[in-house]
């Protein structure tokens, strides 16, 4: 019974934890401009994140060490540094976007400018990282983040033409008012949002924090293989809501309140309250995960002691690094740059950095010296290699498309 509860908790946490500001914004933007014609990208992205998160969880459970530590040791300082630089910069951008997301959600709730909420969000995130136990932090934000299910509920209440939604999703085509360049640019953005690298580092470091062993592999697999797809389903619901309400009205999403519009139309104030709760929890949880991920990657590369299972004094550099990252993110927001814009760029840059993150994971998961008999199976390797090619193509195409389309304008 206790085990069953653990499994259920893990799945729910994974669902709530899957959606972050990047998924929220990108899916709403895409839904409002392209309908469900990019739904297939979410599917591709979810399968990809399942594949690599599962791999890095397995590395952590079998070797007892976080994936990044193994990468640093196995691939050497230079290859490790390339991986670190790419992942760290993306993490920093994502931290900035998530803190902005918390502040925007609080603005939506209170009417007070998001700029005034940024310091509050900063202190709240830091306090939780400093004081709160890893498992409590994970489960609370994940479970409360589940209130984003309100998007799925809203979709039902909107009584959409299911047939037309399905045909948009099943027969994808570029809408007449958009060019193929913007279509593919947003395809890459959506892919980057689903496969954000921090999730993988967080997942493997979290496995070490929670002292996973080989016998926990089954549970981790269930968490990933059920939780992430259900999270992806939430992403699709966000896009579908935007496709039903915003697309016909000609509203393309540039603010968080526009993301909320379909939900308000469907369920009124109550639904909005639930939505705000969900957005705050999801962005707060993601802010914690990205901040921790930056600490994890830095500490694991340089060999500092790390982890929330240690007291902060025993992992001083780890905690200082995270404080610096948080302050850097807030400094970026303090320039007045629009957090939604930061989010849109962060998902595209994620896509650009993906090869540097996922190639090492694939190599390490194939190394018998670390993995013993738990190395990747043949099927996993074939699929992972196909993904590597997709990731590479997306990464190479991202910058030219960004320039050609004026960042999707």
């Amino acid at each position: 019974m206790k085990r069953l509860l653990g499994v259920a908790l893990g799945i729910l946490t994974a669902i709530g934890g899957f959606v972050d500001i990047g998924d929220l914004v990108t899916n709403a933007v895409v839904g409002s401009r392209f309908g469900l014609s990019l739904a297939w990208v979410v599917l591709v992205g979810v399968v990809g994140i399942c594949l690599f998160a599962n791999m890095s969880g397995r590395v952590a459970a079998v070797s007892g060490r976080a994936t990044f530590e193994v990468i640093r040791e196995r691939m050497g300082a230079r290859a490790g540094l390339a991986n670190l630089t790419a992942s760290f910069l993306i993490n920093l951008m994502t931290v900035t976007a998530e803190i902005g997301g918390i502040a925007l959600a609080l603005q939506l709730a209170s009417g007070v400018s998001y700029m005034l909420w940024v310091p509050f969000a900063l202190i709240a995130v830091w306090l939780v990282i400093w004081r709160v136990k890893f498992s409590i932090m994970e489960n609370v934000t994940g479970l409360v983040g589940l209130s984003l299910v309100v998007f799925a509920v809203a979709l039902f209440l909107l009584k959409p033409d299911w047939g037309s939604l399905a045909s948009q999703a099943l027969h994808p085509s570029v809408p007449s008012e958009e060019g193929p360049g913007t279509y593919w640019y947003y395809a890459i953005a959506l892919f980057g949002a689903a496969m954000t690298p921090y999730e993988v580092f967080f997942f493997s470091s979290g496995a070490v924090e929670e002292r996973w062993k080989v016998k926990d592999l089954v549970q981790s697999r269930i968490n990933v293989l059920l939780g992430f797809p259900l999270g992806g389903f939430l992403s699709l619901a966000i896009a579908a809501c935007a496709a039903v309400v915003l697309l016909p009205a000609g509203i393309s999403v540039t603010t968080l309140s526009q993301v909320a519009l379909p939900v308000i139309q469907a369920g009124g104030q109550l639904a909005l309250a639930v939505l705000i709760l969900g957005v705050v929890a999801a962005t707060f949880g993601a802010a914690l995960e990205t901040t921790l991920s930056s600490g994890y990657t830095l500490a694991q590369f340089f060999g500092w002691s790390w982890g929330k299972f240690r007291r902060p004094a025993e992992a001083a550099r780890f905690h200082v690094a995270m404080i610096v990252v948080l302050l850097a993110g807030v400094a970026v927001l303090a320039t007045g740059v629009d957090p939604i814009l930061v989010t849109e760029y962060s998902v595209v840059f994620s896509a650009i950095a993906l090869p540097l993150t996922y190639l090492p994971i694939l190599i390490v998961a194939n190394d018998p010296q670390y993995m013993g008999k738990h190395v990747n199976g043949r099927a996993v390797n074939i699929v992972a290699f196909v993904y590597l090619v997709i990731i590479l193509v997306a990464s190479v195409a991202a910058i030219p498309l960004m320039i050609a389309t004026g960042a999707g304008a």
Partner: protein
Amino acid sequence: MILNDLLGTDVVDSTGQRLGEVSDVRFALDAAPAQLLSRARMVGVVVCPRTATSFLGYERMDVNQPWPLAQLLRWRHRGSFLVLWEDIAVMGPDGVRLRSEFTAYESTLPR
């Protein structure tokens, strides 16, 4: 001199002909016991004619997966060989010069 100074430097034979770059250094843990492990003894350097980038672990012949990647990296490093410490005449910041009668050993690690 630290290892980073050595990696990527040119390797020449006794006549000054360029053979490649140092892409790896091999150590053995068979010296006198120290506090934790035995001290590392330098066995030799791996010379690669084409690239000083890392083998990423694929110098071990039992590591073959993912197959396309292993093939690609082995192909990039084709023609690599191991030169023992005894066969090195000069080793410095400007590179490595080998003795005239050096032996080029297989650089892969069988097992």
